[in-house]
């Protein structure tokens, strides 16, 4: 990782400066810049500085968004009983919702790391990983956290979040890994194609390998 830009060269996303800006203001500003101007946002994002900051951001917003999404689905399943079997069992009981709420943070963490791991492996394979895994993880985490808030919008929020996270991730990788749109799109969209939007209970994302290493 000899070509990594020192962290001080980039001012960082508002979330990375939340001590100065305040927690709420920094959160709102980060969500706004990632949703509305991802390229500008990820051009200032630090490429290093630890996994804790982006993980915390994604964990808070991802858990809240995920719970909101599941709540809307539960309400919808009551109104329109289109779900059957495991799905209805999952959503139609308070116990099911309770279990999901407890597991949600762990699902968010595992999903984030597995997604970032797969995307980074694919970037390595197409020669687009100019910077290390941490950079890819930061892009995925900030994209995921920022777009997760859209799930509070009923019915269309989940769809919007699913599409927007892809767009933000692609623009984010282009800016942070300094790669082309084609290569960033390949890395982000191929896992989606492989899984084709299957919502397999969290751990099914284990399609990914844990193999990573310091390949450059």
């Amino acid at each position, binding site marked *: 990782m000899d070509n990594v830009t020192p962290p001080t060269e980039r001012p960082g996303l508002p979330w990375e400066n939340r001590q100065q800006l305040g927690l709420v203001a920094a959160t709102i500003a980060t969500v706004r810049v990632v949703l509305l101007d991802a390229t500008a946002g990820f051009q200032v994002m630090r490429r290093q500085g630890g*996994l804790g900051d982006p993980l915390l951001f994604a964990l808070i917003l991802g858990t809240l968004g995920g719970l909101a999404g599941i709540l809307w689905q539960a309400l919808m399943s009551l109104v329109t009983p289109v*779900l059957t*079997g*495991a*799905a209805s*069992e*999952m959503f139609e009981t308070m116990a*099911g919702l309770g*279990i999901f709420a407890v*597991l949600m943070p*762990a*699902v968010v*963490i*595992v999903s984030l*790391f*597995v997604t970032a*791991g797969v995307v980074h492996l694919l970037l*390595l*394979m*197409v*020669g687009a990983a100019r910077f*290390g*895994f*941490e950079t890819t993880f930061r892009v995925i985490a900030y994209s995921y956290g920022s777009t997760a808030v859209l799930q509070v919008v009923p019915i269309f929020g989940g769809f919007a979040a699913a599409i927007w996270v892809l767009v933000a991730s692609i623009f984010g990788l282009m800016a942070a890994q300094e790669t082309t749109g084609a290569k960033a799109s390949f890395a982000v969209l191929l896992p989606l*194609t*492989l*899984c*084709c*939007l*299957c*919502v*397999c*209970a*969290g*751990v*099914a994302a*284990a*399609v*990914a*390998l*844990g*193999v*990573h*290493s*310091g*390949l*450059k």
Partner: protein
Amino acid sequence: MRLCARQLEPRELDHEKLWAGVSLLAAGLALAIPEGWRLGLGCPFKAVTGLPCLSCGSGRALQALLHFDPKTALGCNPLFVAALTLWGAFALYAGVVVVLRAPRLRFVGDWQPLRARVLAGVLLAAAANWVYLLARGI
């Protein structure tokens, strides 16, 4: 490109510690999730086209693995089981080196000549897996 064992450099990301932790959490989740949920909510691709997607059968494979039935798991989705096995092997290695504070294995050298072949291998494996799922009517 070759594999070598070396100590972590200052401020270098400890991948082994990270992935050992993530693997433990994922394993805990797999066990904690109620049995019926592991099968997921159904595949939208299959619902629309009638054809399996590349990850169809993964939920059933996971379910079978958790019941110590690798043969059934392999039959459901071989690529998923292979990926999970690789992940498991890496997690085991990561756990051991973290506990023993042993040197870490890293690839060194130029991997560019291998890159295209690895990518082709991954795509070929995915395609072969899909053909298998189609043939088996998973």
